[in-house]
């Protein structure tokens, strides 16, 4: 699914990711942990194609194709999804209208007919039910005045609508209360059954209580310093990042 090879990233001459390599197969969950500034979010942003970062070395294959020369929208259309750590707000833009535009862009790409408002409503009703999202939030402006948790649930809603193949969750747990987190993790489990792959970026071990990752990677100063099972995550909880070698 995803093959990251010797990826080196700089931002304004500062080295952020240093020869990072990682391979992810369909149906796998990779958890990436690390202290602030270790480069976790950068990895997510670079995979999604944020133009502010410079790729100075290495390559990334996504479904066997060169990812890094694809525009952000093409990466999305090809099935890569990033749930942002802090999703943007767009004032005046109706949430439902945004979601519909997004889904139809993907349907058009797959040569499927675009959904009209009524078809879309039927579909979205189902999805918000799954996430127990208030229907009224669809009528609000996109993320405008949403709480941190509501924004994260809105990201989750987009995942359920698109069912992408590789899902990167950048601190999905922050801002969510325990019930919402359980709900998110439950939905992730059902997506796993469809052979979707996950990169879960997190600070805390909390999410690991609900899912069984294939790998946990510890990122520090732009490098993966340790990889293993979820046991190492619990180890960190005890000794802190500084003492992991």
């Amino acid at each position, binding site marked *: 699914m995803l093959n990251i090879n010797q990826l080196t990233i700089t931002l304004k001459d500062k080295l952020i990711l240093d020869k990072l390599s990682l391979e992810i197969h369909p149906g796998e969950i990779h958890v990436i942990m690390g202290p602030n500034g270790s480069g976790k979010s950068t990895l997510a942003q670079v995979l*999604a194609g944020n133009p502010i970062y410079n790729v100075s070395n290495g390559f990334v294959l996504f479904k066997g194709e060169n990812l890094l020369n694809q*525009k952000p929208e093409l990466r999305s*259309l090809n099935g890569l999804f990033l749930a942002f750590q802090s999703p943007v707000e*767009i*004032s*005046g*833009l109706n949430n439902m209208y945004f979601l519909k535009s997004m889904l139809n*862009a993907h349907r058009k790409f797959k040569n499927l007919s675009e959904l009209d408002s009524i078809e879309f409503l039927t579909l979205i009703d189902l999805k918000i039910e799954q996430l127990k999202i208030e229907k009224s939030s669809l009528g609000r402006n996109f993320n405008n005045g949403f709480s941190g948790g509501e924004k994260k649930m809105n990201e989750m809603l*987009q995942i359920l609508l698109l069912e992408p193949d590789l899902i990167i969750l950048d601190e999905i747990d922050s801002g969510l209360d325990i019930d919402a987190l359980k709900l998110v993790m439950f939905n992730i489990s059902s997506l796993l059954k469809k052979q979707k792959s996950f990169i879960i970026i997190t600070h805390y071990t909390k999410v690991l209580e609900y899912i069984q990752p294939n790998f946990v990677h510890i990122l520090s100063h732009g490098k993966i310093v340790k990889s293993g099972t979820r046991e190492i995550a619990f180890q960190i909880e005890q000794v802190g990042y500084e003492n992991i070698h």
Partner: protein
Amino acid sequence: MSNFLPYEENYKYGFSTDIESDTMLPGINESTIRIMSKKRREPSWLLNWRLKAYNHWCSLKQEPRWSEVKYAPINYDKISIFATPKKKIDSLDEVDPEIIKTYQKLGIPLHEQKKLANVAVDAIFDSVSVATTFKNHLLSLGILFCSFSEAIEKYPDIVQKYLGSVVPINDNFFSSLNSAVFSDGSFCYIPENVKCPMELSTYFRLNNQLIGQFERTLIIANAGSFVSYLEGCSAPRRDNNQLHAAVVELVALGNAEIKYATVQNWYPGNKQGVGGIFNFVTKRGICKEKSAKISWIQIENGSAITWKYPSVILKGEDTIGEFYSIAITNGHQQADTGSKMIHIGSNSYSTIISKSILAGHSKNTYRGLVKIQAQATQSRNYSQCDSLLLSATSESNTIPHLCTYNDSSILEHEASTSKVNEDQIFYCQQRGLSVEESINLIVSGFCKSIFQKLPMEFAVEAQKLLSLSLENAIG
């Protein structure tokens, strides 16, 4: 009929047939005005009024130079003031393919396309009868809605009473010019306590009453009445005339409300900035009596040059004036637009919300004046002007002027200028939308508060137009 000049039965040239000799007499002078007025069988007061305006215009010598727009001098000697009928085209094949493309994108049906492109309408769609049906329905309610020429002929007393009462003939260079030579336009009169049941629009009579270069509109809403008026149609319109100098006057009496919406989408010139219409318009309304309300709503995305400041004089107590505007400029367009709110009556309220979007090499200036006079106690104004920059080569100016002469009123003004947010674009791209689609979503969100003020079906078209004019906006 005493108001009318004696009509010379044997006058050699019937107005409608005398195209050739009309075009042979360009130039704006006393004699052309006299001939035109005579041909139009206008009453003597109107001729005198025109001449007075003409004399004032002559004394002004040149156009106002205070605005931010720049253009080559206009040669007034070359302008023919006779309403020259626009050339009819026989089939759509002769229409500029660019226009047809735009129509198709807008989803305008073929027979409408023909009508809008000024192709002689065939029998499928009889616009004249449609217009007449509406007219009769309105007439049964006592609403007078017709062309300005028809109004001069049929309702001379009303026209005489209100013409120039809001925009006097000596108001400014272009309004004086318009007053001297205006050809036609719309007239609308709503009797007391009548709520006009439909949106009135020039659209209905686009084909049978061609509007000239010097358009004149007069809307009178009597006490307790309501009218919503839509100006122009939202289809792009190419025109050989360079200069358009229109005047719109609105009169709202006690408790009356006038809503005036414009979607202006005239030819902006080509990509190099050549050609296009110069649009110098004076629009003003007066809330003459207690509790009257006037709202201006405008979506500006046409013209090479726009120069207009729809204004409200809040004369009565408890009156309300509103101005909602979206001005979008691309290519080499220049817009200098805004509003004036003059508070005279006490407890009067005004709101100005202006959104500018700049792309290409365009220049967009918000210019406004809010004046709360000493007797306008306990009045309020709120103004908000936001500019969104899509291009590094555009120029944005915000020039508000706020003054108050009493200590019981509140004036608030806020403005911001910023470029389109790159994080928002990246986010939308991550969801599979192209940069253009992303910007469209962001811009329509930026403009939403204004779109909401438009009548429903109009808002949809306006939004489509917006995305059309944003095409290739990102360099």
